[in-house]
């Protein structure tokens, strides 16, 4: 587990929740005094879609409760629900620590649209055929939570099915440009697709090797406004 550590020793779940509460207090204070920790809402909710590495554009209504929840079921499966707060606060490190405190080898990175996080010592691993199937797989593709409950994402992870040295890299992008392809699939805006607005996105990778702290940088080459946040692995 130490190989994927990108911050200090993990806190217990209740300590993480307390930190989230204290952070919310400080954010409220800074807002009240006009300091710059503003929140930005996505302006469009799009239908979910997934590809081989698990990139999706997800439904996201504007007003949501500020929280995330990680729960371990008696079966050992871990369920993660991410709501607006994680994206807005950029506090992905707290979610990483809570996952690791429950035995999930995972690192969560909040990466702005158009930026990438170089990981020269980590490589994507081959996905088993049933990777997204539960309970025999490793993790599910992040799926939409009901809008009536505030929206967001839900994902189930099976910590016992990672091979030694493997870990999950979960990328959260607060807001990026997204388009609709000629076939009607929603996804990151690319040449030939019709821009339909802005939405958060997420990507999951099964990887191995060693992670370093994420310092997002612009993607090399021509500017591509439709490109979401992503990780650049050694074998990307």
């Amino acid at each position: 587990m130490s190989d994927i550590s990108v911050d200090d020793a993990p806190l217990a779940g209740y300590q993480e929740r307390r930190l989230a509460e204290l952070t919310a207090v400080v954010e409220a204070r800074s807002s009240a005094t006009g300091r710059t920790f503003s929140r930005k809402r996505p302006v469009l909710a799009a239908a979910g879609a997934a590809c081989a590495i698990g990139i999706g554009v997800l439904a996201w209504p504007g007003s949501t409760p500020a929280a995330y929840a990680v729960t371990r079921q008696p079966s050992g499966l871990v369920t993660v629900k991410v709501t607006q707060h994680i994206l807005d606060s950029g506090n992905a490190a707290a979610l990483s620590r809570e996952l690791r405190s429950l035995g999930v080898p995972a690192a969560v990175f909040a990466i702005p649209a158009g930026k990438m996080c170089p990981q020269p010592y980590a490589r994507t691993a081959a996905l088993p055929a049933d990777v997204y199937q539960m309970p025999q797989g490793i993790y599910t593709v992040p799926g939409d939570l009901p809008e009536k409950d505030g929206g967001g994402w839900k994902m189930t992870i099976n910590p016992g099915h990672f091979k030694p040295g493997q870990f999950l890299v979960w990328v959260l992008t607060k807001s990026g440009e997204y388009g609709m392809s000629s076939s009607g699939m929603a996804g990151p805006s690319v040449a030939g697709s019709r821009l339909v607005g802005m939405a958060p996105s997420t990507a999951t990778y099964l990887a191995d090797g060693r992670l370093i702290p994420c310092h997002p940088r612009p993607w090399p080459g021509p500017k591509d406004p439709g490109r979401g946040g992503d990780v650049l692995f050694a074998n990307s």
Partner: protein
Amino acid sequence: MGDAEPTSADVGAIGHDPTALEMFYRRHVAEVTRFVARRVGDPHTVDDLTTEVFLAAIEAAGRYRAGRGSPRAWLLGIARNLVAAEWRRQAGELDKTQRAAGRRYLDGDDIARLEEQIDAERAARVLYASVAVLPRRLRGVIELVDLDGLPLSEAAAALGVREGTARVRLHRARRRLRAESESAPAEPTDTTFVRGLS
């Protein structure tokens, strides 16, 4: 996060900068929890008080001055005041129901983790009970130095007194406790305590 001691600016920022708060919290939360658990045996109350210590620090961050003591001494000074207020509140049985209703949810794992820390500090709580025979002014410095392990300078800062004053009080407190133990019937915990202070 490095090991360098935060500056006044770092501590001052916790009132408005979430990143500064997180660094500060991660650096000090274990010590504050232990500090509270040495004085309180209920997991919910330990959790409440630890939270209140950081809330009070957020509120008071702009008034922190490095010249008056390290961030740790400043924070434990806050913790000491809040624990004392909690004791007064419990003694007066004030708003007990209201506090219970407002508590955050702690699940079984949370409580187990807190109880581990509370158990680890059980011996210290016995020692705290032992120093209750001392006058309040003498008790404060011996608690912070001999039981919490603060250097004398930091204990003085936490108590808001000069280091020389703290040194005199510490010396008097140890002498009084030694005299108390010699005049009292021998008990294992008292004997251990007095040896530890010699």
